[in-house]
């Protein structure tokens, strides 16, 4: 895997510990990505930080996290200090509980990550945890600090690896009764059901990633391709401009010589 892991740490089951790495299961890299340009100059727009009091630019190495204590009072926290925050769950996924795979409703699933061993030394320990969960049809429940929040996480074996899901917090999922209560307890009309089941059967297909193709992205790429064609003459201009700077005589002589040499080769 050429990708740099998003997180590195340890997976732990009781006395068994193995080094692991994690990367997000989703990626923005294939998306049509736009940059922000300055309409006036067509140059890229970049962001930088300035000191709110002096207005001077702040270099990246001078940027530091501040924890607000009072109205204008901050305590500086270096990244290394934050790494030592007194929670095991910053570095270790300690599986505290196992639950039947289907006992966790999908609505709790937030963000998926792929978890794999980070060192051949942990391969066997990782496989033991994975295979035991698989054979028992169980998922592991643990905690993990991800981007400054401690999350409940679920570990689910998948193929040779493990999918780690962050689970939503209790107060993040809205109470379904608020929305569904008015539906009542009535069931569907049993007379219509056989017909509808026939329709379902007729329209049932196997899952395919084609079902989640993005027609809009394809259209955007077409628009871009069309505009790119219109851009071509400009491109030639752009290319020659920097190669012929307001030059002195020597440069011109050089250029002429080269041109002549090229002509000679061509006529030979």
């Amino acid at each position: 895997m050429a990708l740099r892991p998003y997180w590195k740490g340890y997976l732990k089951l009781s006395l068994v510990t193995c080094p692991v790495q994690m990367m997000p299961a989703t990626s923005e890299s294939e998306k049509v990505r736009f940059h922000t340009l300055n309409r006036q100059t067509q140059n890229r727009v970049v962001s930088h930080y300035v000191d709110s009091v002096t207005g001077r630019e702040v270099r990246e190495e001078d940027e530091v996290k501040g924890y607000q204590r009072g109205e204008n009072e901050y305590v500086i926290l270096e990244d290394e200090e934050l790494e030592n925050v007194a929670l095991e769950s910053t570095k270790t996924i300690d599986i505290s509980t196992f639950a039947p795979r289907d006992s966790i409703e999908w609505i709790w699933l937030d963000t998926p990550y792929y978890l794999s061993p980070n060192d051949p030394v942990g391969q066997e320990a990782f496989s033991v945890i994975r295979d035991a969960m698989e054979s028992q049809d169980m998922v592991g429940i643990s905690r993990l600090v991800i981007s400054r929040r401690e999350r409940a996480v679920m570990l689910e074996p998948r193929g040779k690896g493990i999918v780690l899901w962050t689970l939503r917090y209790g107060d993040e999922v809205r109470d379904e009764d608020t929305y569904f209560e008015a539906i009542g307890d009535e069931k569907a009309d049993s007379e219509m059901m056989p017909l509808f089941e026939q329709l379902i059967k007729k329209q049932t297909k196997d899952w395919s990633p084609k079902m989640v193709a993005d027609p809009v992205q394809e259209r955007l790429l077409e628009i871009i391709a069309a505009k790119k064609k219109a851009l071509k003459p400009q491109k030639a201009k752009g290319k020659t401009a920097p190669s012929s700077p307001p030059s002195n005589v020597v440069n011109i002589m050089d250029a002429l010589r080269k041109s002549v040499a090229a002509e000679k080769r061509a006529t030979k």
Partner: protein
Amino acid sequence: MVGPRANWKGYIKFGEVTCPVALYTAASSSERIAFNTLNRKTGNRVKREFIDSETGDPVEREDQVKGYEVENGQYVVLEADEVAAAIPESDKTLAIDAFIPCSQIDTTYFDKPYYLAPDKMGRDAFLLLRDGMRKQGVAAIARTVLFRRMRTVLIRAHGKGLIASTLNFDYEVRSSEKAFDDMPDMKIEGEMLELAEHIIGTKKGSFDASTFHDRYEAAVAELVKAKIEGRALPKKKAPDASKPSDLLQALRESAGIGAKETKPKRTAANVNRGAARQKAAKPAAKAKQAQAPARRAG
């Protein structure tokens, strides 16, 4: 009582049946601890500015435009209305293209969940869809323009209602097969597997989100307090990874088998016996400490 406000109103269509529905956000995201970015040299807050990469001049919001890089430094400019024009007109209809067996659903495509409830008029059709899908063990795939984006949505029965999950696009989800491709094929069997299964059995429980609490903010507050008081900040040690040669022993001790031998006599003579056993005993104590607060918190 006024009901909750819908985030979207439209129709579900399956076959020739159409039923009006309302869509509600089912999950929100809570905030994470906010730090301010400071200038280390002055201690002042910093603020973000958008500047032209060549001229260094600030660029006003109305002069910022989307550009797609076609080749080295060449950009195609797309105005907001051009991007918007690529999105089809919304027909406010979740037209079901297909049903798929629930067992085939790849959850890594899930984006955001929404509750779907019938609008007064469409209750019969709604109940038919809900109960029919449940009976057949399927979910429905539909596509529509939601919140000005073209989305594929997976609709499934949930309690008395339906849940519609927006799905990530194919190019947004990494293949798990590729992600795990580098790993050797290893299948664990025999005693190791049995021990691990036994350990899982002893840790059987359930997930209850209501008892889970984020301890991160409190831990940072503690760190800040220590820093202000000039106390030494804790240094965290990386845990010891189990060596492959110790794995079986670690599993046995985790399962409570073979641990008895190491427990009783802790004489000086015992301490020097077998490095492997010593090693296993130490993390055991650590594990208990680490687990205690976790259990209390849920």
